[in-house]
């Protein structure tokens, strides 16, 4: 017989070890999970916004999950500018119609996709947003055009509850 004899002791040794490892892992989990977002944070995961006070050409910033969300009621000029861009010229090609459910309303997370600063509105070479930290330029659709940011400004999940109210999250 070439294989080593497996004894009762080997079996007990391995099963005890496996049991201890499973126990230790399941005991460790609560200590890891306690740092995840808790129930009180999850309860704030959606925000409803009344759009009525915003006139064309005006933006507001709302808080959603502790992050700023830009809501801009775009002018016709901005919409046209966003639509006429050749997608092939974009570092991260996305059509404006994929980014705004209603062309008049642009809703996006106001955090630069480079390293997390908040970009300034209506600044930069493309008349959209400009991040002061490391010089990323975004256009009127929040798409990255120039600078170190890798992707366009993120669009959160949102729905129009009616003509004048949206719900983010």
């Amino acid at each position: 017989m070439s294989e080593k004899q497996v004894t009762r002791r080997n079996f007990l040794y391995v099963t005890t070890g496996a049991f201890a490892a499973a126990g230790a892992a399941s005991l460790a989990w609560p200590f890891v999970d306690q740092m995840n977002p808790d129930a009180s944070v999850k309860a704030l995961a959606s925000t409803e916004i009344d759009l009525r006070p915003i006139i064309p050409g005006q933006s507001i910033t709302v808080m959603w999950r502790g992050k700023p969300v830009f809501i801009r009621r775009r002018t016709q000029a901005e919409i046209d500018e966003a639509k006429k861009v050749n997608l092939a010229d974009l570092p991260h090609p996305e059509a404006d119609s994929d980014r705004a459910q209603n062309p008049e309303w642009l809703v996006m997370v106001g955090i630069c996709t480079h390293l997390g600063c908040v970009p300034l509105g209506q600044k930069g070479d493309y008349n959209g947003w400009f991040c002061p930290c490391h010089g990323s330029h975004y256009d009127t659709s929040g798409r990255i055009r120039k600078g170190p940011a890798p992707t366009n400004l993120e669009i959160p999940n949102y729905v129009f509850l009616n003509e004048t109210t949206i719900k983010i999250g």
Partner: protein
Amino acid sequence: MSENYAPKSAVGRWFNDRLPLLNLIYGHLLPYPTPKNLNYWWTFGGILTFCLVTQIITGLVLAMHYVADADLAFASVEHIMRDVNYGWLLRYIHANGASLFFMAVYIHMARSLFYGSYKEPRELIWIIGVFIFLLMIATAFMGYVLPWGQMSFWGATVITNLFSAIPLVGESVTNWLWGGYAVGSPLLTRFFTLHYLMPFLIFALVILHVWALHVPGNNNPEGINVVQGSQDTVPFHPHYVVKDMFALVVFLVVFAGFVFFVPNLLGHTDNYIEANPLQTPEHIVPEWYFLPFYAILRSVPDKLGGVILMVSAIAILAFLPWLDTSKVRSAKYRPLYRQFVWLFFANVILLGYLGAQTADGLFLIIGRIATAYYFAHFIIILPLLGYIEKTKPLPKSLSEPVLSPEERQMKAAASGASA
């Protein structure tokens, strides 16, 4: 023992040549010679180390969610219980862990008393242990204040007022402790800071405790000196590692029983009511592990006297190695001490019972007798016993008491022949 250790891996050797940390760990945990007859009462040292580490780890994660401010503390504890993922589990482990820590430390101390582990040459181990116990008391008390419930608040009020008993400067000292003119936010914040610090001081003392222990080696149930490395000792690993692990698993069953089935059994319901500086709860008691000392405090009808007696009840432990005049360690060979030590244990339990009762009538009278007996044990009984007690003959080795008469004769004959 540790000098001839060489790590197996090249990295281990490289490290160990530059910093012999592995030598140190190896020497103290693996071949460390241990008396071969240690019973399960000796497993509580390991259990206590586990308790300390558990309290530090659970405390660390609780501190990530707790807010030490009088306006927010109570709500933040409720937030831990309801919102934080597994917060209820972490808090119940921490709260019940404190109780089990004291349970284990009382057993550990009782073992030392019974088997005379505090005697020469182990006095310093015992004294370091008394300091660990003192720090544990302070840590547990401050920790109990943090949830800022009614018991927290009024416990803090009563205990900090003990310092007002100090003549002349009492009031200034209490105001200094409070950082104000009553218990409030400043006290809560400083208690939180100290509660976080003290476990690490305890940890440092535990290292000294174990270091001092490993100089003479463990005492044993026979209480006789054993020669390290003789037939009376076995290596710590695997013999006592396995025994300690088994005892720890049994201890964990009890621990889990408390945490998962009766997590509030040892607590007080009044502590789920937020602190109210305008109303004292009807019946205020400390946690169970302080009850014997609380009974001593209350048995004295004088403010300063009560405080002095309560502090003395703990301080007197540090002098135990010199108050006990008997040279024989183990109660097994001390027929009188064996009875008195059980009487002492019973008396402490009685004091604990009295501490939970209202301090009047018969309870107060019994409390005074029990307090007097507590001190009499140390000041009168122990010093006298050393002179009047006729101790039993001590065995020459650990094997001797378990040998049959024939084996004993054979051994005696063999040693006689060789002499």
